[in-house]
């Protein structure tokens, strides 16, 4: 399988599609950045920052760390840009780096003993902005249940079901085969539904298909 990004055109917060099928433009951009042509690094950041930020939020939730992590992702992207091959693998490469940084962050949060997946800055920011009562109970339950999964499974679930990536995209992003990701997702989904079912807080309509 090649590392070609098959990314959906998902509107960002800015209202514009993130990444479009433009292999020639991406190849040219990669060339320009590696050759250090003026303005190329800015163009790369402009092109990918909203995509990276959205993925980070999907996997980690919104919060004050998103900007710091966005910088970390871009630092790692630039550091190994010369190794991206073929050039149109650039979007997939950026996604994979983002997933790696997100997983490291999840592990770090676990080590610092935050028990809830989105407990620290993330839910703080959401509750600060919207009020604790405004964060829907089913969303909160989803966060809490996800926290009981491994960091790998959390990432797979959020990329698949929150970001809406296809199976092949998720496989490329986390660096496993299609067959492996299917197995991992099946296991993770069963575990998540089990936790959500036992919890029963406001998610029953979802798990029974009652809500749209």
């Amino acid at each position, binding site marked *: 399988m090649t590392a070609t990004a098959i990314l959906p055109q998902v509107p960002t917060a800015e209202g514009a599609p993130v990444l479009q099928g433009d292999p020639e433009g991406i190849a040219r951009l990669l060339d320009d950045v590696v050759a250090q042509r003026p303005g190329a690094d800015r163009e790369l950041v402009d092109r990918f920052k909203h995509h990276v930020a959205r993925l980070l939020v999907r996997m980690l*939730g919104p919060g004050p760390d998103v900007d710091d992590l966005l910088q970390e992702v871009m630092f790692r992207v630039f550091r190994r840009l010369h190794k991206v091959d073929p050039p149109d693998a650039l979007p997939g490469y950026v996604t994979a780096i983002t997933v790696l940084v997100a997983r490291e962050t999840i592990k770090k949060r676990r080590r610092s003993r935050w*028990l809830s997946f989105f407990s620290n800055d993330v839910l703080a920011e959401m*509750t600060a*902005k919207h009020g604790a009562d405004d964060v829907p109970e089913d969303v909160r339950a989803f966060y809490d249940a996800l926290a009981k999964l491994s960091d790998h499974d959390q990432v797979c*679930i959020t990329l698949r079901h929150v970001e809406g990536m296809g199976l092949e995209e998720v496989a490329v992003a986390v660096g496993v085969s299609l067959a492996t990701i299917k197995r991992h997702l099946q296991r993770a989904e069963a575990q998540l539904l089990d936790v959500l079912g036992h919890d029963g807080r406001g998610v029953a309509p979802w*798990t029974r298909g009652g809500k749209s």
Partner: protein
Amino acid sequence: MNAERSLGRLGAAVGREQDRALAEQPLADTDTILAGVARKNRRATSRRRMTVAAAMVACATIAGVGSTVKATREVAPVASQGAPAPSVGPRQAGEVKMPLRFEDGTTIVLQPQTRADLHAVRAHGAELRLDEGVLDVSVVHTEESRWDVFAGPFDVHVTGTKFDARWEPKTQKLTIVMREGSVRVTGPCVDEPLTAPNTKTFACDVAKPPASVAAPAADTTADPAPAEAPKPAPTPKNADDLEAKSAPALVTLADEARLGGDAARARRIYELVRRRFPASPEAARSAFLLGRMSEQTAPNEAAQAYGEVMRGGGAYAQEAHGRLMELEQRRGDTARARVLAVDYLVKFPNGPHRAYAASIEAAAP
């Protein structure tokens, strides 16, 4: 209901909630991101140099050579063309450029017809006064380094960058051309960060430069021990832009400083917000972030900040309560942590830290 479809529906709802939060939280601008990337690159380069230097020392030791190579980040100025390294003192470039190369890789080049004065050399930086002409500055920045270029009443504080500085004594104008990274320019009428790419000219209406930016002592053949130059006079309060800014504008500046790695400046501005706009939402946010920034290095300060946020109520009170509970538990004050945990479970029964609070309560004897 198929599991895949159920989770897809729930996931979509989560995604919508996240998009709402993301839409309300503007991302860092591209300049800030690129400045952060440049800073991380320099830090990585600095670490590699340290590793190479340490390896050289190890090899010399093993070979039994009485090496005088020091794996240190001490900076000593090296004059151009291999001449003995002077320390402080004036320089004048004639028809050709005059580079000053420092041990950490920093280079300051006096362009032709430029006069400058190396005030002081420190372990992790130097101070240079530009008397006339153009300096081409490339600083290898690390967390410890501090470089200042003074020109007339201005101080260009280098936070990791490449730039040109031109000073015209007749017109008292300073022009900065940013090529990479960022600097901070302060003076009687300015306190401004500049990030590459950017070119800006500064001119303050002052009768004469502050007396503190003075010529060094006549004896310039002193040993290499650092001789600290007097610091520039502090900016008059009524000319400080920060004092005139609104709370949201100050918080934005503080956030930029925090994300750009200038923790000291971020702290100053967050404290200013608390002082000037007490009881405001921005003050609560500033206190919360000050607490976060202090947790590892100054836990008492962090505890104080979180306590203030909790007492004020407001949007960050719940999170400050959770963090304080965690902080006290981590510091070993289990009694205090338990009190906070019990209180948390009463006030925030559905809060994100309820499971942790319950575990603290359950573990109590």
